[in-house]
């Protein structure tokens, strides 16, 4: 209790000598601000920016939504929808997906309402998509520019990379999308697989949630088919993601667009056939003409050259019947989907398109938007974001903070160094404050004060100065951090997370430093030559 009185005296002394404390307080405020800068660079870490808007050239917007975290989505056990992170030393070229997908695949409760809201807001950017509920939103949404080929509300994705070309042909695992001018018809879709790249760390999977039915696919093969999916079928198209940046460095592969290669019909009610096509062994395991329920479409052989890697063909239902008729197959009634696994690079996909057009002369092939930057940007000025900025946004940093060519770790290291310097400056100033109290401490000791009372007095002053500095720093840093976080689209959840991290950094840096300073000051006070000091020595 006696020490409590000394705490009060120390607080009064600090309060009445603000000018003396100001330098230390300012240094802590600077440290706090530097920490805030550092945190804005760091917001791309898992859990804070997984839902950051990704803008790419070509008019596409890709929004990553942690599917497993969405309320109501109940993936069957063992269904892995996302890429697995490359193992250390592994050959996975898809490391760019880490850590976001790794996080999404392991955290079932991490999606924040802000993330869901953000996804919904982006969905609303596309006409006809706003009806999608968050529950229906799948892990990754590849949305296409409005007015182009398709409007997409739910699409999961997977992808594969052609090592030779640097391009990836990918599977678009699906939910539902719509063709302009046609009745909305839900489509299930399917994944491709990549035999050339298959490894333990290079897996893809997808699932479709349609009318409450769930289909999960892994390595292009169905893992879980709990029941027939009567709703699937209808509109299918051939789509490939276009990648860039991987020619020299696989880890820097980035999708820059989505190419629609074709749009084709699929008969209804053929899910069983599809599922068998996707059983281990894939299409090649099923001889032409031996598909259950009827002969296999001859075009199957056309679109399955041996040197292709991956692709997904979604064929509109109306054309499927035409195609089936051409091969003399009368599919059973009902809805279904037809999936063609394609192998090869982008050029080969064009061959697929040509082959399908030949087989389906009446098919309406969707216009393939040019992936030219200029035309894409003209198409949608809102998407006119340079690639570099898009990549920076993808990593959660603001373009102004991550200059081209400056790796984020250097930016973080620089911030850390600034923070450490500012904190040490703060510690030094605190110590100066303390040793300026040498006469007061000596007088107290002469009056019979023990080390407890002296420590209480000094501790109160150190605490007051540290609090003042922290409050001043936070007063500047919090609005700055809030602006940064909100302008990056991270929402209230991201803002609160960033606040928490800032407070943790400030408190975590200040408290130990203040404690060390107090301990040093107390030791110093214990050794103070009282008489010499009080005589003016």
């Amino acid at each position, binding site marked *: 209790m006696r020490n409590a009185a000394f705490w009060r005296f120390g607080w009064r002394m600090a309060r009445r000598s603000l000018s003396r404390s100001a330098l230390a307080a300012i240094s802590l405020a600077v440290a706090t601000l530097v920490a805030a800068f550092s945190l804005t660079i760091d917001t791309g870490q898992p859990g804070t920016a997984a839902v950051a808007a990704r803008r790419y050239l070509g008019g596409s917007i890709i929004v990553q939504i942690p599917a497993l975290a969405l309320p109501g989505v109940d993936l069957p056990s063992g269904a892995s929808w996302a890429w697995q992170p490359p193992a250390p030393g592994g050959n996975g070229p898809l490391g760019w997906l880490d850590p976001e997908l790794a996080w999404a695949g392991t955290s079932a409760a991490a999606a924040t309402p802000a993330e869901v809201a953000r996804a919904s807001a982006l969905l609303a950017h596309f006409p006809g998509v706003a009806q999608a509920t968050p529950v229906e939103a799948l892990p990754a949404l590849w949305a296409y520019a409005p007015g182009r080929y398709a409007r997409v509300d739910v699409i999961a994705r997977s992808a594969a990379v052609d090592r030779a070309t640097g391009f990836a042909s990918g599977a678009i695992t699906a939910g539902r999308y719509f063709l302009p001018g046609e009745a909305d018809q839900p489509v299930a879709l399917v994944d491709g697989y990549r035999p050339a790249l298959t490894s333990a760390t290079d897996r893809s999977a997808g699932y479709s949630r349609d009318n409450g039915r769930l289909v999960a696919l892994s390595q292009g093969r169905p893992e879980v088919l709990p029941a027939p999916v009567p709703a699937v079928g209808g509109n299918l198209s051939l789509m490939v993601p276009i990648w860039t940046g991987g020619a020299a460095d696989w880890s820097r592969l980035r999708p820059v667009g989505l190419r629609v290669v074709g749009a084709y019909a699929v008969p209804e009610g053929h899910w069983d056939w599809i599922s068998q096509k996707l059983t281990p062994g894939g299409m090649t395991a099923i001889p032409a003409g031996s598909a259950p329920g009827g002969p296999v479409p001859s075009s199957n052989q056309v679109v399955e050259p041996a040197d292709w890697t991956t692709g997904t063909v979604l064929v509109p239902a109306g054309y499927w019947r035409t195609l089936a008729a051409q091969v003399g197959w009368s599919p059973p009634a009902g809805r279904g989907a037809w999936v063609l696994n394609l192998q090869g690079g982008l050029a080969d996909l064009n061959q697929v398109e040509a082959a399908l057009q030949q087989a389906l002369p009446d098919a309406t092939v969707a216009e393939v938007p040019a992936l030219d930057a200029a035309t894409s940007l003209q198409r949608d000025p809102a998407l006119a974001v340079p690639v570099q900025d898009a990549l920076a946004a993808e990593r959660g940093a603001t373009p102004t903070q991550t200059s081209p060519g400056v790796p984020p770790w250097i930016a973080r290291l620089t911030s850390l160094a600034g923070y450490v310097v500012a904190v040490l400056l703060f510690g030094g100033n605190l110590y100066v404050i303390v040793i300026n109290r040498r006469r007061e401490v000596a*007088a107290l000791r002469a*009056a*019979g004060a023990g080390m407890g009372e002296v420590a209480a007095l000094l501790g109160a002053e150190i605490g007051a100065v540290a609090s003042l500095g922290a409050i001043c720093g936070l007063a500047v840093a919090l609005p700055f951090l809030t602006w940064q976080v909100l302008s990056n689209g991270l929402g209230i959840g991201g803002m609160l997370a960033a606040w928490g991290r800032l407070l943790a950094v400030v408190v975590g840096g200040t408290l130990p430093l203040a404690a060390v300073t107090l301990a040093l000051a107390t030791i110093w006070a214990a050794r103070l030559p009282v008489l010499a000091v009080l005589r003016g020595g």
Partner: protein
Amino acid sequence: MLLEADDLTKIYVTGYGSVEAVRGVTLRVNAGEFVVLAGPSGCGKTTLLGMLGGFETPSGGAVRLQGQELNQLPPHELVRLRRTHLGFIFQGFHLLQNLTAAENLTLPLAMRPGTAATREARAQELLELVGLGGRARHFPYQMSGGEQQRVAIARALANAPQVVFGDEPTANLDEDTTRAVLDLFARLNRELGQTFVVATHDPLFADYAGRYVRMRDGRLVGS
């Protein structure tokens, strides 16, 4: 006998050799005495005072307060002794500038049991005692040197010590103020029976001291 010093010696060892600051001083102080240690600067007064107050460890000899040998006490006991039995007044006043006069007095009082109210009452009582009853809320920098020294005296008296040591307590004061402070010492000595041991080179103390002890070269040379 309140305070006894027997054959006290203090030798400082420096890089340039050793200095014998106090040489075989023997001194007895009875309760209620007003003892002045007088002598020129550097004669060892402050060193002797430091040993009497337990701040300095003698190189030889012993100091006893009410029969208790100071240099045999552990540090925490010395702290307790200074808190309860000893008071100190210095040339530079050494008041805490950011605390008011009353707060400067309640600070040593806070080291002992008691409520804030009793501490404040005692502080006011002490200020009245030194003639500064109306300056309780004034800060040291709002007071003259003599007033600050009177607050310092009050602070030294706060815990009702058995002996108050003064080290050149009037060196910073003019003659009139010095006389006022000496009047206060004499009054406290006379009315309260307060024991003072004061080191000074100021001859004015001779008019007020109960015993005037001269020092030279670390030795007592006359009384």
